[in-house]
Every structure is written in C-alpha cells, then in structure tokens.
C-alpha cells in the first residue's frame, strides 16, 4: 500500500483572485460532508444548545445609580513589563570583553552578569588591569570568544543601586565661606567597595592564572595595528 501523502496546498485553489476552482456542490463532496452525515445517521452533528440560565440575569437592564461627572477613560492595557536589554548571544558570564570607550578604552575585562537595568557588570580584575567592578553598556563592548569559568565567583549581591552616586548634602554657605575657594572634596573609594572588589577578584584571579598567558592578555590593551581589518577579524 502506498504511503499516505500529507495534503499540501489549498483544497480549493484560486484560479483568479475571487474565483475558486470548485463549486459549492463539488466542495461539499471533497470535504466529505456526505460521509460525516452518513456516520451521524443522515444529519450533520450539532452541539446541544446551552441551557438558558443567562437571560434572566441580563434581561431587565436597570439604569445605573451614578453617572460620573467627567468622562474618564477606562485604562484597559496591562502595564508593560520592562525587560533588560536583550543580551547578545556571544556574551555569556565569564566572557572576556574589550571595552571600546571611556577611561578604560581597549582594556580586556571579564563579564560577570547583566544587571536589571540592562548594563553589563564587569571587573578587570582590578589587580590585573586596573578596571574595578563597573557597569558598561553592551553597545560599547566587543565580545571575544575567550571564556573564563566564573562559577566560583559570587555576584548575586551587585545591583544597579550599588553603583548609584551618593547624594551630596548641600550645605548653606555663609558669606565668608562663599568667597573661599571651593574646596574640592576628594572622592574616596569607600572601604566596603574595596572589600567587595577583593572578594570577587581573588576567586577570579585563581581561575585566570590557571590558563597560561591569560593574565598578561587581560593586562594588555587592545589596539588595531597595520593590516588589521576589523570586519575580517575573528574575535
């Protein structure tokens, strides 16, 4: 017996837009409605009508007791859920990234995780190349195919709030102080940030030192040289 062919294409194709190939009677036969009727004893199978329980509740519509003074639009749509920026498939936790802009332009850093704002959390590690725990935008980054195992690093506690600037208290200036040159308050890195950096980096450096040349690689900056064509380079 020949294998059953799966139906492809329409049963009743358009000869010309608006004109089908088969007539209503022909289609009745093709759809097998005669067979369905025969199977059901001469009649087309139907569902029983639902018992009429609804009409009583809906029948006499009472006038509402209260009409609002202004026509207020009913908000129907559900609030949109904000997702963090879609992460490029080449960027996974532990990927070595090349920063393309800013103070650390050209530095190769290790990607830790994506924060809820969409920015990427990266670290140098600090001891290797001077890049601290930092947020970076995905657009200003080249992802290399080199990966580091960061399963031993705990980054759960870092969120966008951690990187927010602390609000400066505006102190009222007296006349005398106004004419004094503004003393620039030196921004000191708080101790807890240094401790966090050390905690993340010690685990990471151990993994990095296990791979030959990786530490010197991360310490060096990337730059284009003669003959390097970025669109042809494999990162």
């Amino acid at each position, binding site marked *: 017996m020949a294998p059953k062919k799966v139906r492809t294409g329409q049963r009743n194709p358009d000869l010309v837009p608006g004109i089908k190939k088969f007539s209503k009677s022909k289609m009745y036969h093709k759809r097998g409605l005669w067979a369905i009727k025969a199977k059901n004893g001469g009649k087309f199978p139907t569902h029983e009508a639902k018992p009429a329980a609804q009409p009583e509740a809906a029948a006499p519509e009472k006038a509402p007791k209260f009409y609002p003074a202004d026509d207020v639009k009913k908000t129907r749509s559900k609030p949109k859920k904000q997702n963090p920026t879609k992460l490029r498939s080449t960027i996974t936790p532990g990927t*070595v990234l*090349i920063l393309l802009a800013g103070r650390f332009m050209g530095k*190769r850093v290790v990607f830790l995780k994506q924060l809820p704002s969409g920015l990427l959390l990266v670290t140098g590690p600090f001891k290797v190349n001077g890049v601290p725990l930092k947020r970076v935008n995905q657009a200003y980054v080249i992802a*290399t*195919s*080199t990966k580091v195992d960061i399963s031993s690093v705990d980054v759960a506690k870092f969120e966008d709030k951690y990187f927010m600037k602390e609000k400066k208290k505006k102190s009222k200036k007296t006349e005398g102080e106004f004419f004094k040159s503004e003393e620039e308050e030196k921004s000191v890195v708080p101790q807890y940030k240094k401790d966090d950096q050390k905690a993340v980096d010690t685990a990471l450096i151990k993994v990095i030192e296990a791979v030959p*040349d*990786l530490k*010197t*690689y991360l310490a*060096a900056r*990337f730059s284009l040289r003669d003959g390097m064509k970025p669109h*042809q*380079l*494999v*990162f």
Partner: protein
Amino acid sequence: MTFKRFVEIGRVALVNYGKEYGRLVVIVDVVDQNRALIDAPDMVRCQINFKRLSLTDIKIDIPRIPKKKTLIAAMEEADVKNKWEKSSWGRKLIVQQRRASLNDFDRFKVMLARIKRGGVIRQELARLKKENAA
C-alpha cells in the same frame, strides 16, 4: 617560458572567484573555448569559466565525465588531498586560513611567541658576532 599546466580532463584546479571560491575541483570535460565542466567529491557537477580557475600541478587519471564514485576513487588513488596539502601553494593557503581564524587571545599568544623568537635569534646573533670578532 613553455606552459607546464594544461587544461585537460583530470587537471585539478582551484576556484579563484565566485561562490565556490577556494575549492579544489577536477576538470571533467570542456564545454567550449571558455568553459569547463568541473566536479569535486562534495559538490554538484557544474560548468565554470576558465577564468575562474587556477590550474595546479596535480593531474588525475579519469575518463571523460566520470561517475561520482569513479571520481572519488581516482582522487584517492592519486592522493590529491595529501599532495595538495604538502605542496607549497597548498601549505600557504592553509596558513592563511589558520591566521584568518585566529581569535583575539590567539593573536596575543602569537605576538608573545614572535617576540620570544626574535629575542632568541638576536641573542644567538650577538653570540656569533662576538665569536667572530674575537
């Protein structure tokens, strides 16, 4: 001055333009003054302009338009793959492909290796110079 590589049935050539760029193929027939019929083990037989072919030194023994099986057997017998990979042209291509596929980390490691090699060479040169001067 005289030509050494001829267009003939069985001549192995490299495609140098088009969709099949870089592929090693065998000329299995000549269509007319400008075109040949080419075939390769993992390719559908097709026609191509001679201008898109670079002839190699390798030639295999096949009848005109052989079946795929005969073609593959003849290529195995003539050991085309190994001959190509050992030839200087073939080796150059392999190196080019390897360099193009290097990852950023690989390029860094290559740079370190070249510096190291340069250092060793210079040391040796200095030593030889000293010996010669003495």
